[in-house]
């Protein structure tokens, strides 16, 4: 628990005991299993990007971020902003496993009476900081949130997850320009660079690379990591807190990571697995032999 001093003693809300890398990897695997179950049960949704970003999301919710699931609006919390809103399933799984709402809600994703919308809704789901879904907007909104926190002298840090495909949106670069211009120290962008988007490979659809150089040239400090190397991800996220000005982490990932038949397949961007496919995916994620 935070001692209430600033900067808060790390970490965080799991009884003050940091998880080791193996435990964080297990959390990430758990999130992936939830994603497969949720999307399969819903019959629609976006598994590919949720699976590619699961390690990053697990690192944030279970290690790096200061947050209080029993007090979602705690003013001193760090904020997670999902700019690539279609990857809501992995955020919902992290929120539920953190304790923001019951785990059983997850299987009602996208259903008519459930608070878990197809894309995040800040007014429906506890722990969701902003509504998102129209790509490119979340980073701009995050810049506004970071400005507001700076005005109020709040200690929290804003972690924003974007995609490499999302980086084709012009508004991303408007926001990147603004964060540097306003000298924001309290914002980190993690680009889930899985190299795929709906219509195919990002390099073929509309090349956005070199992303790291682009961020640097806009005045950010950027770093590239293997987005599935948990120790490297945690290290980069912690590093980003101390960077003067805005920080970018380009996380090289594999779309559909952890499920062999989904990996590097653009078709799994926004398609639900069948019952049989989901069962196979879950066996793989649990490390059970075929």
């Amino acid at each position, binding site marked *: 628990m935070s001692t209430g001093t600033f900067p808060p003693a790390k970490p965080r809300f799991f009884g003050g005991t940091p998880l080791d890398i193996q435990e964080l990897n297990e959390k990430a695997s758990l999130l992936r299993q939830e994603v497969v179950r949720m999307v399969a049960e819903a019959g629609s949704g976006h598994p590919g990007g949720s699976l590619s970003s699961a390690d990053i999301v697990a690192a944030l919710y279970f290690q790096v971020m200061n947050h209080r699931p029993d007090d979602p609006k705690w003013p001193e919390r760090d904020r997670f902003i999902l700019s690539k809103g279609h990857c809501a399933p992995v955020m919902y799984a992290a929120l539920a496993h953190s304790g923001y709402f019951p785990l059983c809600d997850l299987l009602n994703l996208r259903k008519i009476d459930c608070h878990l919308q197809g894309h995040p809704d800040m*007014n429906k789901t506890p722990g969701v900081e902003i509504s998102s879904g129209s790509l490119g907007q979340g980073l*701009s909104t995050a*810049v*506004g949130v970071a400005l507001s926190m700076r*005005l109020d002298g709040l200690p929290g840090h804003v972690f924003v997850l974007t995609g490499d495909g999302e980086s084709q949106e012009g*508004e991303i670069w408007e926001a990147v320009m603004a964060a540097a211009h306003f000298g924001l120290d309290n914002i980190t962008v993690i680009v889930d660079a899985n190299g795929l988007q709906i219509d195919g490979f990002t390099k073929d659809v509309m090349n956005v690379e070199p992303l790291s150089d682009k961020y640097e040239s806009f005045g950010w400090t950027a770093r590239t990591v293997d987005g599935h190397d948990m120790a490297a991800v945690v290290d980069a996220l912690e590093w980003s807190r101390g960077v003067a000005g805005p920080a970018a982490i380009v996380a090289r990932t594999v779309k559909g990571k952890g499920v062999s038949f989904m990996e590097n397949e653009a078709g799994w961007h926004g398609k639900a697995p069948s019952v049989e496919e989901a069962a196979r995916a879950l066996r793989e994620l649990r490390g059970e032999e075929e």
Partner: protein
Amino acid sequence: MSEQKPRATREAYGEALLELGRRHDDVVALDADLAGSTKSAAFGKAFPDRFFNAGVAEANMMNMAAGLAVGGKIPYASTFAVFATGRAFDQIRQGIAQPNLPVRVCASHGGLTVGEDGCTHQSIEDIGLMRLLPNMRVVVPADFNQTFAAVLESHDLPGPMYIRTGRPAVPFLYDTPPTGLGRGADVLREGTDISLFACGIMVSRALDAAEILAQRDISAEVVNVSVIKPIDIDTVAASLEKTGCGATAEEHSIIGGLADAVQEVAGELCPVRLGRLGVKDTFGKSGHPEKLLEEFGLTAGDLVSLAEHVLATSNK
């Protein structure tokens, strides 16, 4: 009508914003490289820590405003109406209106009277675009004093709001700033033969038209509809019940704006004949503002002709 020298409603926005900054620490303002024109610059000078110029990047401005609202601020985001509602429509829709955030989109340079800059800068669809959005309150004040009151009042209202101001100086219709917008429709002149509903710069023209009609023994009621959404159903319906016919006048397309808002009330509560004065589903062009209003049929004389036509063809 007051004898004070006419002033633009955008100037009232600038002065009221400055006053809001003095009164409330949670007020922040944003602009997109038009602070001198929208009049937000005075706030920026007085409160530089609470003013954010997005540069020529309206989309980013709207979402930054949304983020500031998420953080508990009351953001006032200004640019020209055409960019605010056209360029950044999706940001207002998904970033502001859908999450029901208290962002005030304060758009200046509404309508044809932008003048010489031409159709690219003349917003004739903004009221319609904003009216379509759930949660959005749409306000078009008629003069300096009413704009000042509306901006001050906006601080304490829930949810998002669109406030449209104009470039040209317009006559004072309210001697002192009203305490607020009230129900959003004021009967400025009582009449019994026809109701003239107007907003923005067309309100003073509707009063002029009523004066001309009076000389022709036609008693016109003039209603200033400053809140287009949610429209003051009771006042609009009561006026139409009394007069039995009406006409709308707005510096906006005849599609989507005040005309539709009044027609919707009439259609559901008191079906009567209604004429529409506005831009007739066409784009604007360059020219002096007054010449444009003449060419596009938005003068007091045009409203007189329309009112007489409505009366002549109404079966009341």
